[in-house]
């Protein structure tokens, strides 16, 4: 059997989201069940009839989902943990499970209650490094990084960024362009946390550089929220919404995925491999999509993915990411919902639900006209990557 990233006849038939807030009295479990129920309702299926579950990067258990959703006969489950690359990788797995006949109605939920559950990554919380040392983390972190105060993602990824700008001579203004364009998308999305707050170049430049080269507005939001999707065979859905097909996709991993600070090539990203396989198998280029939802934990990480998707060359993303291209009404809109930077951080599952809304024509003021093909990426931990092509 030859390898392929192409998926046949599988669709996302339901999407569900909670409200996206900073501060909630709902538990992580309750948020996850709320979005899961909403996804089932959207797909027109009974929650009890779910027969597959791919837990996308959260610590809730298979038992939590079975007991709360009253699942009668769960025939498949998996739990993936590759950081922000998890939701897209999980949906690809769910699609393959459906295609293989292992399950027919697969729920893929993500949840992150960064504020209310006290799991913020950018807080500088005093106990952060000691708490993480107790968890299952690569031994590289507590031994090689924590002793030098290197604890959180904005620090890890800064090593990638500083090398990149020095090596390529790329213009750091690309980061500002992503921040401002993404905020403009958010300003027309009622579900975006920053819907009512505009961002000017002056505000961006006046903001503190927390970790070189990242200004405050280069760093994603941390929020409380959950989003989920239902994956089914395209021939069987009972849904009033238009079908959104999963054309294909893949995950990819860099060499030395256990460290950013001590590796041989800090620019190495898993997305490079995932994108190469996916676009070759689907016989397309990234720029043939009508829009892209690109994982934007940091503006810089979005820039690098534009390059590794093949939208432009190494060092060229700052020139690619002009507002007339990636902003609202642009020729290649990116993060039409406001992204992790300005909508909410649901591990990137909100990128998936937004792409589905776009392809159903349900994206409101941010609707991309005649959207037929959408890209969604994920990025997690030390440059794990994932990419998926959706079409209507």
């Amino acid at each position: 059997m030859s390898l392929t990233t192409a998926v046949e006849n599988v669709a996302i038939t339901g999407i569900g989201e909670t409200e996206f807030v900073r501060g909630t009295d709902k538990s992580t479990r309750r948020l996850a069940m709320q979005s899961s129920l909403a996804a089932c309702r959207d797909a027109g299926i009974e929650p009890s009839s779910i027969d597959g579950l791919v837990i996308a990067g959260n610590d809730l258990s298979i038992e939590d989902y079975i007991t709360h959703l009253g699942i009668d006969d769960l025939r498949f489950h998996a739990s993936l943990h590759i950081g922000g690359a998890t939701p897209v990788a999980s949906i690809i797995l769910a699609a393959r499970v459906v295609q293989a006949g292992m399950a027919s109605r697969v729920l893929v939920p993500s949840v992150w209650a960064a504020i209310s559950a006290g799991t913020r990554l950018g807080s500088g919380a005093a106990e952060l490094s000691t708490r993480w040392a107790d968890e299952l983390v690569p031994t590289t972190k507590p031994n090689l990084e924590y002793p030098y105060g290197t604890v959180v993602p904005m620090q890890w990824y800064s090593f990638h960024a500083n090398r990149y700008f020095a090596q390529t001579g790329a213009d750091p203004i690309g980061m500002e362009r992503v921040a401002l364009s993404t905020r403009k998308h958010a300003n027309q999305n009622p579900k975006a946390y920053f819907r009512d707050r505009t961002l000017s170049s002056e505000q961006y430049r006046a903001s503190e550089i927390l970790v070189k080269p990242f200004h405050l507005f280069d760093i994603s939001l941390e929020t409380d929220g959950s989003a989920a999707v239902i994956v089914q065979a395209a021939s069987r859905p009972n849904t009033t919404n238009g079908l959104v097909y999963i054309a294909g996709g893949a995950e990819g991993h860099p060499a030395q995925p256990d460290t950013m600070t001590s590796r041989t090539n800090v620019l190495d990203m898993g997305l490079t491999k995932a994108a190469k396989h996916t676009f070759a198998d689907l016989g397309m280029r990234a720029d043939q999509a009508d829009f892209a939802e690109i994982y934007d934990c940091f503006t810089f990480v979005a820039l690098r993915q534009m390059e590794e998707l093949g939208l432009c060359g190494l060092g060229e993303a700052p020139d690619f990411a002009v507002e007339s291209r990636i902003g609202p009404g642009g020729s290649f809109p990116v993060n039409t919902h406001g992204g992790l930077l300005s909508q909410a951080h649901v591990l990137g599952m909100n990128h998936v639900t937004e792409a589905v809304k776009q392809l159903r024509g349900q994206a409101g003021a941010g609707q991309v006209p005649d959207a037929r093909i959408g890209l969604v990426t994920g990025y997690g931990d030390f440059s794990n990557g994932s990419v998926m092509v959706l079409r209507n």
Partner: protein
Amino acid sequence: MPESTRPAPTDKSGLYAPYFEGLTQGQIKVQQCANCSAVLWPPQDMCPECYATSLDWVEASNEGTIYTYSVYNRAFHPAFKELLPYGAVSVRVSPGATILGEYGGDPADIEVGQTVRAEFFQTAPGVALIRWMPSDLSTPAPNQPTTKE
């Protein structure tokens, strides 16, 4: 807050033991495969080139060039609050490893490609860390870690 409250390495007796023991003696040690001579860093249990499990520890150069770096204007652990702005540099050393340490000069002066030399400082009894010094500030390589800091 004294430096001794920094997060201490968690593996001083296992896989990383030769590395941390080397630091207390003013040496940077990295893994090298006894079978195929591949340099492994960070350390691991098996060589990914030939799958040998017999891995030696060899002394790396105490001098290298900055491969990449960061400057922290916020502390994410309380021990670093009074050290801000804090420079952290990943230094490429012979025979082929990238070693993270703190930067001993003004963080505003850090540049990719810059030559730096390792100094070693004690943070707790039996625990030493690396401070990469720019060449104009570095003193002749000390053989023993200094105990102040």
